[in-house]
């Protein structure tokens, strides 16, 4: 039996991460005036864009990773790693 057909695709994880990711982007765009004026204050508020970047990268990064896996775009099976 071919290996690829038995491997379960992370569809559920992709959907969960995708929904959270869409919600994050929707909030960012719908509340952009409040977000811009708050983030632009500088000083300690500098932490806000940094935290935002980490949160978005976690959820959207998870979504995009699962997205390619579900589409069947995965790393080569023979590893190319060096050491």
């Amino acid at each position, binding site marked *: 039996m071919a290996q690829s057909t038995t491997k379960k695709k992370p569809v559920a994880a992709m959907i969960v991460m995708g929904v959270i990711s869409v919600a994050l982007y929707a909030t*960012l765009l719908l509340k952009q005036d409040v977000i811009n*004026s708050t983030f*632009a204050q500088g000083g300690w508020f500098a932490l806000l*864009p940094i935290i935002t*970047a980490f949160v978005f990268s976690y959820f959207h990064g998870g979504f995009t990773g699962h997205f390619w896996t579900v589409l069947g775009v995965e790393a080569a099976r023979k590893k*190319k790693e*060096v*050491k």
Partner: protein
Amino acid sequence: MPDIATSFINLDAITILYLFGVGFVGGLVSGFIGSGGAFVLTPGMMSLGVPGLMAVASNMCHKFPKALVGAIKRFKYGQVDVKLGLILGVSAEAGVLYGAGIQEKIKATYGDAGSNLYVSVAFVVILATVGGFVLYDAWKTYRSGNANTEEKAGKLAKWIQSINIPGTMVHFKSINARVSVLFTIPLGFATGLMAATIAVGGFVGVPAMIYVLGAPSLMASATELVIAFVMGLGGSLKYAMHGMVDIRLAMIILAGSLFGIQLGAIGTTYVKPFMIKVVMGLIMVIVLFSRGLMVPVYLSQLGLIDTLGDTTVKLLKNGSFAIMIFALLLGAFIVLRAMWQGKKAEKLLHASGALEHGEV
């Protein structure tokens, strides 16, 4: 510093799609060669009306989370040397601060045109020497028929690995040797200096890891993502302290670039290592022409040559931007093509294996 309250541009659907698209292509190339994209993204944002400093800040704020995701992905493939990345990253941060200081001084003395001329000349000189060498080396490997064999450290790297300076030696898994940090510090510093000057530190960092330290291309390009993360995080914090980051722009670019970086990282598992050098060298040499085209414009603004007509300036500016986009698209095309061919070859290999074992 521009008035922040009036610096935020209005976002419409076209702008969002444009940023998403450039982010995707930039991410694809970054996932493959460890850097790239910034040289198109910053002027790309400025063409939308974003002030220069805010474009640099927003680009940086998308760069560090992108590099983090790419580094984690490539770490899973065993391609990242975290220790080397962190050591180079910290010294690169110092290089960024020093480079930004030089930029400010040049700008204060010679104005915008002087600063732009300095950046363009640095671009042309560095990309011509380093890019030309990387491309020549890739061509030599291709011609020698050794494209499939494991890369070996060059003479310079072997010499550096042979030098023992007590108290400064660190073992790096990518090099599989001990190297003095007295050699890695200036390399990291130069990478940061380049990041602050031409926005793409990896054009110095990756070749330095390959040719000076002796790291394989795949590991050098993956480790560059760790350096980019450290530099990007520090830079973003610095700019965010002054409220210069437009988080909307950064996150929209990130949306596209995370799709791209995952794909670029996957692509590295399908290609021969010398392909990293091919893509990097090609982009560097093409971008060189893009920046070279702008040199007469800045010379004219400084009064060092006859004043150019408005049409000529517009033509040169548009030509320069078009060449940059072409460089990025060509890089993305080579990555996708190499990946497609690798995937096809893998399928054939598995099909013939299944036939041999009587599974079909």
